[in-house]
């Protein structure tokens, strides 16, 4: 019996093997459609004029307009907060990677005093509720002059992104056999030279994936970013929570802003599709 699977007696059996229940495909695509429905609905809202949204319920927009997007790009409080978010998330991704890459290498290649404790300590910071850090962040960042600056938010988000980056990179790096390091050492490469010339190029896709996740988790964070900013570095997420004016909520504009903040994720999703689970599971899948 043990030999049977490998030599698959009939092609017909082989083709059918591993096949799912007949209705599995249908159920899956139904689920996928349900998943997309709220998203499409928000997109539908973003291209309707506000009179139509509040004028009465309709499934298909009566009139399509780009006015909400035009408003977004002409009002500086909207587009500048969008830019603020891009600036501090990019800054954060770069800074997190710079400190995390050597550390991840150390964790994947060496044992050293307290390595397990340190590794665990990093994890607890990734898992810590941001609400816990609100008060001290508010006070410390004000006293050192980082309050309401892009750099301040970027540093604050390193709280969870540095541990994330170390864990993901360590997962990727441990998948690369240590024999490569040893061969390079025999060939006379010093550690820094080996690292830059051989190792970094080998893990460049891992670095890309990690950078993406740092960007993403910083992009989605609201609580800390909102607490340590007021005007100059105010994130788009905070602007979106303050759309209530005297005339009520501007639903169309809110939906348009929502669509625009999804874009960074939607643009790269194709490239990271096989790594999404890995990124969220800290490189452990």
């Amino acid at each position: 019996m043990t030999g049977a699977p490998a030599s698959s007696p009939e092609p017909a059996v082989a083709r059918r093997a591993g096949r799912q229940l007949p209705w599995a495909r249908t159920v899956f695509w139904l689920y996928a459609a349900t998943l997309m429905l709220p998203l499409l609905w928000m997109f539908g809202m973003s291209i309707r004029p506000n009179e139509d949204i509040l004028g009465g319920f309709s499934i298909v927009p009566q009139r399509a307009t780009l006015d909400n997007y035009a408003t977004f790009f002409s009002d500086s409080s909207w587009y500048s907060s969008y830019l603020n978010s891009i600036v501090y998330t990019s800054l954060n991704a770069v800074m997190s990677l710079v400190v995390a890459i050597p550390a991840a290498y150390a964790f994947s290649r060496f044992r050293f005093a307290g390595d397990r404790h340190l590794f665990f300590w990093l994890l607890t910071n990734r898992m810590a509720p941001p609400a816990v850090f609100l008060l001290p962040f508010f006070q410390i960042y004000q006293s050192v002059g980082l309050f309401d600056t892009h750099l301040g938010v970027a540093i604050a988000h390193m709280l969870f992104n540095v541990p994330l980056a170390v864990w993901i990179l360590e997962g990727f790096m441990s998948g690369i056999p240590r024999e490569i390091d040893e061969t390079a050492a025999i060939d006379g490469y010093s550690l820094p030279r080996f690292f830059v010339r051989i190792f970094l190029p080998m893990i460049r896709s891992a670095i890309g994936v990690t950078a993406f996740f740092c960007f993403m988790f910083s992009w989605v964070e609201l609580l800390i970013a909102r607490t340590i900013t007021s005007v100059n570095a105010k994130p788009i997420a905070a602007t979106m929570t303050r759309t209530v004016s005297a005339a009520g909520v501007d639903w169309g504009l809110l939906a348009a802003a929502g669509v625009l903040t999804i874009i960074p994720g939607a643009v790269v999703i194709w490239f990271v599709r096989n790594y999404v689970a890995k990124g969220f599971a800290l490189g452990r899948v």
Partner: protein
Amino acid sequence: MTVTEPVEDPAVTAAEEPDRRPEAKPKDNRAWLLVLPVVVCVTFTALIPLMTVVNYSVQDIFSPSDRIFVGLEWFRSVTRDPEVRGAFLRTLMFSAQVLLIEIPLGVAIAVAMPRRGWTVSAALVVVALPLLIPWNVVGTIWQIFARGDIGLGGWAINQVPGVDFNYTLDSTDAWITVLVMDVWHWTPLVALLAYAALRSIPEPYFQAAQIDGASAWATFRRIQLPRLRGVLTIAILLRFMDSFMIYTEPFVVTGGGPGNATSFLSVLLSKIAVGQFDLGPAGAFSLLYFLIVQIVSYVFFTVLTRSGR
């Protein structure tokens, strides 16, 4: 009909695959130089703030110059505060419901996901999309979608005679909205994790099951489920942690209300900390909250480092 012996092997071999051998790593304390930047960085972003919180939690602070040491008084009052207790139970209840729904649903989706052909990529992209949406936008999406007047979801529910769904007024409706939103947002993560594990099962195992005439259930129970064990542990812990500290989505949709129906621990804590600026109680609350998360993290860490090697 059950599947014969060899088919059960994958779980065993998976556990024994020597992916990483920590004992083979050379010991070198100079590696500390490589982790030093991380330590400095995390000291500034995590350790110092945490010490500040400890400092708050044992003092009654009237002004920077006028403060008295109160010992564990704040801890006592926080653990007795009915509002905090309510939020704690609510958050636990929420996490439990999230796990009960998302884990089985995620596994079912993973099993149903296409496994070959171009549809694989399409399926991955569609399923991954909710995970890459900013959390406050997830809130915005559902804030619109679940409204009775302008949202498709709320509108559809209200078409049922006798139902008046309104998440801004009714606490049950608010709870359901937040729960459905979380299921929509995070079930894809469970599905993707499970799917990654399922794809690693070699095709011959399915062929053997086929030849043995195993039913779909037996194939799932004997071949697929054992492979999922490690991944599901990760999924359960991740989902527990993230749902236990949920803030942004309920904040956007319900703001913790109506009343305190969706006032979870993080929502309440940030209200006490930033809204009322009660340093002492907020500090004590934070530390207790942090402690719970720390304990779960430790379980998580043990599981991850064991299953990985």
